[in-house]
């Protein structure tokens, strides 16, 4: 994944806000990158741009060599469906559907048959330890269980890239640890993880940390606290300083 000179500005109550300022960076396949920074520094903007959900004011965003925002919105939706998984801080589960049905949604969007959807969704919920909560609606689950349903939903279509926005923001330490372990596991399976977080302990799990400050990506090297084995991609190419 790559950003080339990407800026994003929008007007808020008549004032021009720069969410991202001329950012250029590259994230390699299989990396686990944490994006940290103060509130309003542009972390979520960065994540949504990688997910094809927010077009830049200038610059280009690449995924597997394709310029995302040169594609139509529906083509970007197809890429999200097939290659990208989102994990949200507030889980964003569909409230009127059961855990099983929530996990079935990406499979339905991918055109899988209902029986196939049910089988795979059941397996995924078993994998995240919710095999006995298939018919529970989100409101009937604890926050930790909701986040695990969200994680199972992310895995439904076996995405190459997982974009997680404060995945542990609403969780107690034990549940946070469970979620981080799941993300570690996904990364070990070869998936690229980009995680926005305020939590230093969560950031420490990443192979690389990107610092954002007022929309600028600050120069940053490999994460010294990373437990990543040597030889794995674990570097940053950051050219985001304001000119």
């Amino acid at each position, binding site marked *: 994944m790559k950003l080339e000179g990407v800026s994003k500005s929008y007007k808020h109550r008549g004032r021009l806000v720069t*969410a991202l300022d001329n950012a250029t960076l590259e994230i390699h396949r299989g990396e686990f990158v944490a994006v940290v920074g103060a509130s309003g520094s542009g972390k*979520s*903007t960065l994540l949504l741009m990688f997910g094809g959900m927010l077009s830049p004011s200038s610059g280009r965003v690449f995924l597997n060599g394709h310029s995302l925002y040169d594609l139509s919105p529906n083509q970007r939706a197809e890429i999200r469906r097939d290659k990208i998984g*989102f994990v*949200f801080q507030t889980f*964003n589960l*569909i*409230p009127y559907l059961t855990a099983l049905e929530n996990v079935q949604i990406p499979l*339905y*969007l991918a055109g899988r048959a209902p029986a196939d959807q049910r089988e795979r969704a059941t397996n995924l919920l078993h994998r995240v330890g919710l095999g006995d909560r298939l018919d529970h609606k989100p409101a009937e689950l604890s926050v930790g269980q909701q986040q695990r349903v969200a994680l199972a939903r992310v895995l439904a279509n076996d995405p190459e890239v997982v974009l997680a926005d404060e995945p542990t923001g609403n969780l107690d330490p034990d549940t946070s640890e469970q979620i981080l372990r799941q993300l570690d596991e996904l990364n070990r399976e070869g998936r690229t993880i980009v995680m926005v977080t305020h939590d230093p302990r969560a950031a420490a799990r990443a192979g690389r940390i990107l610092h954002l400050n007022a929309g600028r990506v600050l120069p940053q090297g490999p994460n010294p606290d990373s437990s990543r084995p040597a030889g794995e991609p674990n570097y940053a190419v950051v050219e985001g300083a304001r000119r």
Partner: protein
Amino acid sequence: MQLRQLVWREAFERKNQLATSFFAIFLGIAAIVSIKSITFYSEKAVARELDALGANILVLPKSASVQDYYSADMQHEDFPEEYVSVLTMSDLQGLDNLSPKLSIPIEVRGKKVTLTGILPKSEFQIKAMWAGAGVFSLPAEGCGSVAVVPDAFKPPVQETLMRKRVIDDLGDNEALIGAEVAALLSIREGDEVEALGKKFRVTAVLPQTGTVDDSRIFAHLHTVQELTGKGHVLNAIEIVGCCNAIAGGLVQKVNKLLPNAKVVTVTQVVDTQIKTNRMMARLSFVFLGIIVLVGGASIANYMYANVFERRREIGSLMALGAGSGLILRMFLLKALLLGLAGGVAGYVLGTVLAVTLGPRVAGIIVMPMPILLVWAVGISVLIALAASYLPARRAALLDPCATLQEV
């Protein structure tokens, strides 16, 4: 998971909000179905009344007036009997009954009365050309041919003989006597009466009708033609025309077929029927307007609120890979279900109301009209889809990022 499951579950999750829109369209459709059902059977009932009342179109000699006809002062004007063939052989719709007549003033026992020659129904059927045209075998579709009430199938009794305008059989020396003439000349059924030198046996004294028929003696047309020595001529053809057909220009069409005759309509009677029909049609349109406005606005308002409320959900679906087409379909399918439910429920309630209230309000028997189900569902679905299209489009074009409120 399928689209309909997604839509169904969401609809039931927020069923209270959905209920308002459902009731708006359901009640509107029920009102229209009820009005249309009552109107339909009311028109049929009025048409039957008109049928009983008699002819509503007159074909007269070119220079004659309606007054001439009623005063029977038409002995100097006539037209060929072939005019009847012209009418029966034509493809005109709405001619429910024809009654060719030749009327002349005569004196019987020193009193002035009108002798009217009429053609019994049996002779129409004997004439191959006329029977082939099917005047008496037309399907019962005109307002004058309606036979919904079982009584209509009963053979005509004496009291209705004149009102039906068609007399099944009438011999050459048989006569029917109007009530006024019978009273004036003290004639009773079975008596003999002499007219133009010929003796007739009175087969029936007709009941009082309050019309010009009360002062007439009816005999076979061909007998009267022979007695007057005028040959095969007529001076009137009474037509029971369907009022809707008259409104649709039947009189003008008959006039075109018979350019040498005068074609007039009993305007008061027909106008009353046409006005009633138009009033009910306008009432239906008013209700249609109300349902389009109230039902449509209610659905549109609900859909806009629903889209606003579900922005986050829409954003989540888009983040998971849903395209704008799927979001559009999701809302339109919901509108379709709403329209279907509103249409079917509205038809059921409207029909129940019409069947229950019809006899009390309009004094008519109303039967369910299945065709209105198609109409009700069609209108309801159309309104629901039209009212939901813009909100659905708005949902489909939502910025997924803004819907997640992450920036």
